């Protein structure tokens, strides 16, 4: 709306002047007018038209106007003539209805209960005045009655047993579930069981939370009791724990070094590195081979992942 390139329509300006716009729309119009001289000018034009229209004087008819008009108004007919008119109209409608027969579709819909109340009433009214449609209606009634009298037929004895036998014979045996399937089934069953044990009310969840927090409270109480000893402080406990972690790390490093020293693969790698360092040409050749392999791998990745070639042919 504030875009000067989309000016306000004359309808919008007139609606604005007449106060017919909603508050939000009025604000938008005013915002637009503030920044658009063309629309503001057009609004002034409309204001002028409105004010001129408002100033138009009321004009009075010439003398005896009312009498002349009333002389032209037809007088109300008498009760008798009105009754005759109504009768003539009704007869005319009946005659018209009688001329337009209901037809097979309409008659079937009538018997099928598919017509609305008004249509049903009109159809019956028509039939009262139309012997042809009445006769055809009776013929359709015969068809409907005959169809309604068709009984359900029973199959021969033992049909249900034969069906069940055929069904059981046709039902393929369920495949034996694999280990993974059984594990998943068991996990699903356990999850269901666990789900049944979970509380369903806020009070239940509060109780469960209290029970679950009991061990943590016990541990905290124990820690409090231990650290209450004058010789055992929190700082001392932290130092002790850091020593234990450092000891564990050193033990792991020692075990790793020993494993490398005993490993045949590590020995072979070490020997190959030593040989390469003794001969610079072999080292360069090895590096170039590694570089070529890396490039080839990168190319394969690019072709297959980043820029796959378009699929040709049709899907099955």
């Amino acid at each position, binding site marked *: 709306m504030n875009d000067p390139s989309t000016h306000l329509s004359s309808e919008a300006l007139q609606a604005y002047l007449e106060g017919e716009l909603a508050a939000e729309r009025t604000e938008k119009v005013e915002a637009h007018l503030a920044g658009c001289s063309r629309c503001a000018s057009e609004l002034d034009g409309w204001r002028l038209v409105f004010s001129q229209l408002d100033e138009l004087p009321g004009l009075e008819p010439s003398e005896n106007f009312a009498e002349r008009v009333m002389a032209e108004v037809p007088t109300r007919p008498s009760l008798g003539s009105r009754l005759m008119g109504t009768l003539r109209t009704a007869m005319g409608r009946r005659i018209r209805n009688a001329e337009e027969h209901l037809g*097979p*579709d309409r008659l*079937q819909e009538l018997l099928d209960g598919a017509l609305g109340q008004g249509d049903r009433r009109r159809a019956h009214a028509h039939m009262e005045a139309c012997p042809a449609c009445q006769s055809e209606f009776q*013929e*359709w009634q*015969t*068809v*409907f009655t*005959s*169809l*309604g*009298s*068709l*009984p*359900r*037929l*029973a*199959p*021969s004895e033992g*049909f*249900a047993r*034969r*069906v*069940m036998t*055929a*069904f059981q014979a*046709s*039902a393929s045996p369920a495949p034996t579930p694999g280990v993974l399937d059984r594990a998943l089934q068991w996990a699903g069953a356990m999850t269901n069981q666990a789900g049944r044990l979970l509380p369903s009310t806020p009070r239940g969840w509060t109780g469960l939370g209290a029970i679950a927090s009991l061990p943590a409270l016990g541990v905290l109480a124990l820690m409090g009791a231990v650290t209450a000893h004058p010789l055992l402080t929190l700082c001392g406990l932290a130092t002790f724990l850091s020593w234990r972690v450092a000891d564990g790390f050193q033990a792991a490093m020692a075990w790793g070094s020993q494993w490398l020293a005993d490993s045949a693969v590590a020995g072979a790698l070490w020997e190959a590195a030593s040989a390469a360092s003794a001969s610079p040409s072999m080292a360069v050749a090895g590096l170039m081979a590694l570089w070529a392999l890396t490039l080839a791998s990168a190319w394969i990745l690019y072709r297959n992942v980043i820029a796959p070639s378009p699929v040709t042919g049709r899907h099955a």
Partner: protein
Amino acid sequence: MDYAQLEDREVVSLACEGRQRAFRELLTRYEKPVFSLVFRMVRDRERAEDVAQEAFVKAFNAIDTYDPRYKFSSWLFKIANNLAIDRLRKRELDTVSIHGAPDARSNEDEERTSITLPSTGESPEEYVENRELGGQIEDAMGRLRPEYRTAVLLRHVEGHTYDEVAEIMDVPLGTVKTYIHRGRAELKEMLAGAVA
């Protein structure tokens, strides 16, 4: 558990769990309606029992694929009707028709599209001889083209709504109305002819 008190969808859900009693209950509920429809379609008791049995076995084996948004009866009737129509097509049974294509707009269209295939099944006289499908209305019903017959039977014998018939026959509602109206019109002509 009293299965007879349960609604169809509850019984179907029990059947999906593999309960034999649920299958038996469904069979008890629908053996007559399904057999009636199929019998009046194929016009032969032995064939009708084969088709009805095939329909039940097919439905029971595919019970997992049943969509509970629709009525179970509609789903079952759809299977049975399709099998009956297939059987009719295969055996080129009675496909005598008076009217042409349902969408024919003129008499010429109707004549051009109306077909009369040779019937290798029972003749109309044989229909009458058949005690169960005897009587004027059964005889006339046997002469209707299969789609008209299905629609009229589902509407009048099984009491399905037009929408349900459209769902079972897998055709638009307007087509079902046409089938039923034309089917009845043919029946009316045949019944009038029989009286005259």
